[in-house]
Every structure is written in C-alpha cells, then in structure tokens.
C-alpha cells in the first residue's frame, strides 16, 4: 500500500513538476510570476474535450493542447507582461496575469458550465492495471510518467543544446547583457511563454486524462501549489522544480495514507515555509543571499 502511494506520489509529482517548470521558466527569464499558467493547466483538459468534440483523435488533441495553450501563453505575455518590464512591476504583472486567468475560468464556465465535464478517453485505457511486486498500478500512470519524462527531456534538450535555449539562458542570466549580445529579448520572452504555457497545458492534459474529467476550478489551487513547489525547489531552477514536485507529490500521498488528509493545503505550504527559512534559495537553487545584490 505504501509503495503504491509512493508510486502514485511520483506520478502526481510529475504533473506538479510540469506546471512548476512553467513557472520557473518564466520566473527565470522575467523574474515574474505568471499566474495564468494555473488556468492554462486547467484549460488543458477542456482543449482535449473541445478538440475530440470536433472530431479530432486523441493523439491530435494532445498536440492541440500544447499548441493552443502555448499560443494563449503568447496572449498572456502580450497582455500582462510586455508592458511591465521593470523590477517594480512584479506585482502588477502577476495580478494582471491573475485577471487573465479569471477571464479564462469565466469563459470555460460560460461554455461548459461550472461543473466537471467528462473527458472522452476510453474507460478501458484508464482502467488498465498491471500488477507489479504486489502493487496495482494503472497503465495510465506509467504513460503519464513516461510522457512527462519525455517532455522534461525535450525541455532539457531545448534549454541546454539549442540556440533558443542558449538565448533563454542568457536572458535569464541578465537581460541587459543578452541585449548587448544582440539577443532579441522580446522574442526570447515569447518563446519562454510558449514553452511554459505548453508545459502547463500538458500537465492539465495528463491530469484530465487520468481523472477522466476536467473542471474549471481545479487550476487555481493546483497552480498555487506548483508555485510553492517552485520555491521549494529553488526559483528559476529546472531540476529543483522536478525534484520539488516529486517530493511534494510523495509527501501528499503518504500524508493521506497515514490519515493526515484533513491538513490538506497546509502540508505543501508549511514545507515551503520551512524550506525557505532554512535555505532561502530553495532546496536545489543557488543560495540567493542578499549579499550578492549588495
């Protein structure tokens, strides 16, 4: 049972990680929080429903999620971040992206109603189980884990091996310096938003496929948790987002098994506060002390 909970925690954690990766990418490049990612995560499931409803096969729906969420990410960048470039605008941009998220929720509720909607994935897919060392594990979970790992691998390759990734890293290091190098910072921002939003959408896709439903109110708290995970892992640190996500996923699963389900949100937030007090830069991030900025 406990082993099964740990496996489940890893799968849950990998979905947290996808959204946390989105947050951390944007934060790394812009030093800002993109709250709309929470709702792009929520939209992931509804894009599947809409595209299957229009006759698309499931694999195409999956790709459409990445594209549609990515494009919406560009809209968010344009509306909420393009104009707010200075460091002072951190809160302004965050609140603006939050408002964009509110609009997304409202549009989804107008279209599909406020209640959960069934995601058209064959029940046999969701129900397929394998026995593994006495554990019962859904094939879907394995698929989710595999897809998530592939996405993370692609992200890693994009960031560390391609010209685009080099530019993103340069801007993350210092936008001013990147501009001096002739890097088009605006373009890099757009690329970052596209990738981050596609990742969040992918997280929502996995989530809705696994649960068999999509709901309009799931994004906000999930997204906030992903933010806490980003802080636990170290802001702007991709590896930290993944490991932090898995850590929180496993802890949450085990907490429920051991009867601490009532604590709910407290678990992740208390963990984040403790981590930040002990290591202000997060578990895996560089220790951002105030000194280097002195």
């Amino acid at each position: 049972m406990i082993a099964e909970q740990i496996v489940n925690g890893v799968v849950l954690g990998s979905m947290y990680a996808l959204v946390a990766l989105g947050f951390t990418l944007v934060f790394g490049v812009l030093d800002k929080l993109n709250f709309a990612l929470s709702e792009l995560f929520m939209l992931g499931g509804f894009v599947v429903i809409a595209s299957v409803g229009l006759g698309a096969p499931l694999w195409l729906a999956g790709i459409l999620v990445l594209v549609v969420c990515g494009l919406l990410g560009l809209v968010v960048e344009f509306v909420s971040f393009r104009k707010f470039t200075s460091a002072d605008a951190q809160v302004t941009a965050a609140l603006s992206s939050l408002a964009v998220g509110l609009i997304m929720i409202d549009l989804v509720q107008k279209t599909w109603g406020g209640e959960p909607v069934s995601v058209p994935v064959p029940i046999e897919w969701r129900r397929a189980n394998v026995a593994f060392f006495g554990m019962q594990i859904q094939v879907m979970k394995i698929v989710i884990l595999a897809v998530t790992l592939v996405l993370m691998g692609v992200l890693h390759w994009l960031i560390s091996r391609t010209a685009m990734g080099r530019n993103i890293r340069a801007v993350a290091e210092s936008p001013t310096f990147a501009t001096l190098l002739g890097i088009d910072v605006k373009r890099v921002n757009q690329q970052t938003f596209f990738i981050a939003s596609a990742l969040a959408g992918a997280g929502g896709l996995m989530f809705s496929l696994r649960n068999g439903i999509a709901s309009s109110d799931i994004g906000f708290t999930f997204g906030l948790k992903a933010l806490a995970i980003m802080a636990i892992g170290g802001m702007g640190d991709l590896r930290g987002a993944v490991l932090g996500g898995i850590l929180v996923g496993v802890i949450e699963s085990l907490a429920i098994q051991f009867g601490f389900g009532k604590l709910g949100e407290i678990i992740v937030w208390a963990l984040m506060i403790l981590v930040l007090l002990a290591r202000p830069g997060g578990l895996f991030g560089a220790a951002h002390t105030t000194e280097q900025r002195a």
Partner: protein
Amino acid sequence: MFDRRQLLASTAALAVAGHAPLALAADKPPIKVGSILAMTGIGAVYGILYNAALKMAVDDVNAAGGVNGSKLELLQEDDQLQPSQSVLCFRKLAGMGAVVELGPLTGTSWETVAPIANAMKMPALCFTASKAGISAPPYALRIAPPDDTAIPEGVAEFMKLHPNVKKIAIAGDAQEASGAAGMELFAKMAKELGLEVVATASYQTRTSDFSPDAIKIRGANPDAIFISSLGPTSLPLVKELEVQGFDKPILLNSLVWAGAGFIHAVGTAGKNVYTIGFSTNDVDPANPKYNDYVKRFIERTKTTTNLPQPVNVCNTTLPYDTVFLVADIMRKAGIDGTTPADKARELIRAGLDGLKAYQGINKITLRDTGDGHIKCHLLKANAQTKQWEYALAPDQRIKTPAAFKARG
C-alpha cells in the same frame, strides 16, 4: 404601453396552464418576490437550474390570475456562492421591497443569511441547503429536507438493497461544512447499524489527486463506501475508484443528486453509485401534477437555458412548490401589490408560523427546527440515460418516516 415580451410570456403561460382567467389586473402593482442564487461562477449550473423552476412557478401563478389580483414579480440577485454577497443581496432585495426571499443555495450562505432574516423581520425560505440544524424560525425556514432525515432514510434503503454490507469506508469533503456534517451523520448511522468503519478519507473541495484516497480505501477492503461532499466534488474519487478496479457499491449524500455535473460526467463509474433524493424524471402514476411538471420543466430548460440535457428534475420541484406555497399564504392573508412591504412580511411570517405541511408537487412537512421533511429514497445513477432513477421498486421502498419531530 403593453410590453410585447410580457404579452408573449403570459400568453405562453396561459396556454400551458390551460385556462384563462381574465382578472389580470394590470392596474394593481406587482408583489415582489426576491431570490438569491449563484448565476455566475462555480455554482451557476445550480443557480440557472433553480432559477428556471422559480420563473416557471411565477409564470404559472401569474397565468392563473396572480395573487389577489396582483402579479408576482421575481427579483433575481446573483451571490456567486459567496456568503458576504448573499447578505448584500438579501438586504438589497429587502430594500427593493421584496416581501419574501427565496434562496440562497448553500448551507454556508443560508447560515449567514438566516439570523439576518430574523433581525430584519424578513421571511426567507431556503429550498436547497442540506446541512442540518441551521434554520432559524420564525422568519427563516427551509423547505428542503436536511441530511439528518435524508441520510437515515437513504441508508436504510441502501442496507435493504445490500444487506451483506458489514464493513464500510467513509469519505468526504472535510473542509466544507455540509460535507463534514454529512460525514459525521454517516459515521453515526454506521454505529447505529453496527457497521464497522474500516477507513476514513478526508479530502478538500479542491484536492488535486484522489488516487491516495482511493488506494487507502481499496486497501482497507470495505464492502461499501459512503461519501459526503458538495455537488460534483466526489466525482473524481468515484472515477478513481473505478479505475483502480474497486467494484463495491458507493452511497453519496443527497447533495450530489441535485447537480447536473455528476450524472453527466460519471460515465461507466456510475454503475455502482447511489445517492439520496426524493424525485427523479420517472413518471409517477400517483401524481399527475408531478408528471406534468417534469414534462414542462424539461421542455422549458431546453429552450431557456444551456444546461446539459436531459436535465434531471431533482429537487427543482422545491423552488416551484415554494413559490406556490408563498402565493397560497399571501392569497389567504389578503396580500396584494398595494400591501405595505412591512405588513406583508409580517403576514407571511404569521402564515409560515401556522404551517405544518404543504401539499404541492411534493408533500412537505415542517419540523420544529424550521426545516422541511420530504420522504427520501435511494436513487441509482443510470449512466446511459444520464438520469437518476429509484433504486427500489415502489413496493420495496421503505415507507416508515424517519424519527423526527413534526410541528404542532
């Protein structure tokens, strides 16, 4: 000038009502009836559903000649399920001259509004909230049967259908008042029936992952699961249990049945799912009034709302009955549009005070607590038709009323 839309509406209503009294006195001012429902946000599905029933009732009352020569006018306010907004709407409606207020939707909002209704001497009737013990007579009454009668009645039928159930698991939304109260009631019932509770799982309204709960429950190997939470919150858990191959019966509390989301999204996971309620879309040979309502309501929602079809009538009969109940009281008390609001409210309160039972579409009995009672039954999800239906045949259902103290 005669409003064309009004004309159309009343003509339609007349046609439906089947008779045409011409005493519609256009010169008497209307009687204002307030309603507080969530029309936007997460609760909008419910708000739209109940609003349709309220409007249908008001149209029917007006088509039948209104009340003492005055038409009813429905003032609708949206509280977005937020208690502070409910209060705002409540007092706003009072300020607009409403003589009685219907709603709000949730127990939390109802609990916030009920004391204010008494303080303001404003009759308020709630027709949805299920949490026990929160009504505040004489001004704030609830027509709906709360969980403290519904759950025992439902569980009794459930045990009749599944007599071999010995070990149960209880799950629910512990961070929501109605969900938590329902969990306690389930636990109490289990104790009374000698059932062993092998696992308890508390989740939250916005829990991200129900797998751990499902694994825990499955691991404890219960014969059945009782789940208590608002609307569709239990849906992911039910679906997760199916995915994990859990094949035992699941009993949900009454709150689930009223919403469109659950029954429409439950899919094949619905085959083991039961809930508690008092009306379905089934034809009831003994109650032609009910059959007529079901037919008309479903037709009406097809054109006036974007609710997923087929709509489950569920407890929309309650808002409908509530309007007629209020209209009856007003008729008897001689209230019309010219009665000062204060006086009308007092008269309605007096009418409610003496009320012991009301026979509308449903038979509603009033209890000392200010809550209604309607005999509840076990319902079963039919995933194919996306409708709830009675789990037991009419002669199998348990008829004995639950132990409660009626008024008087």
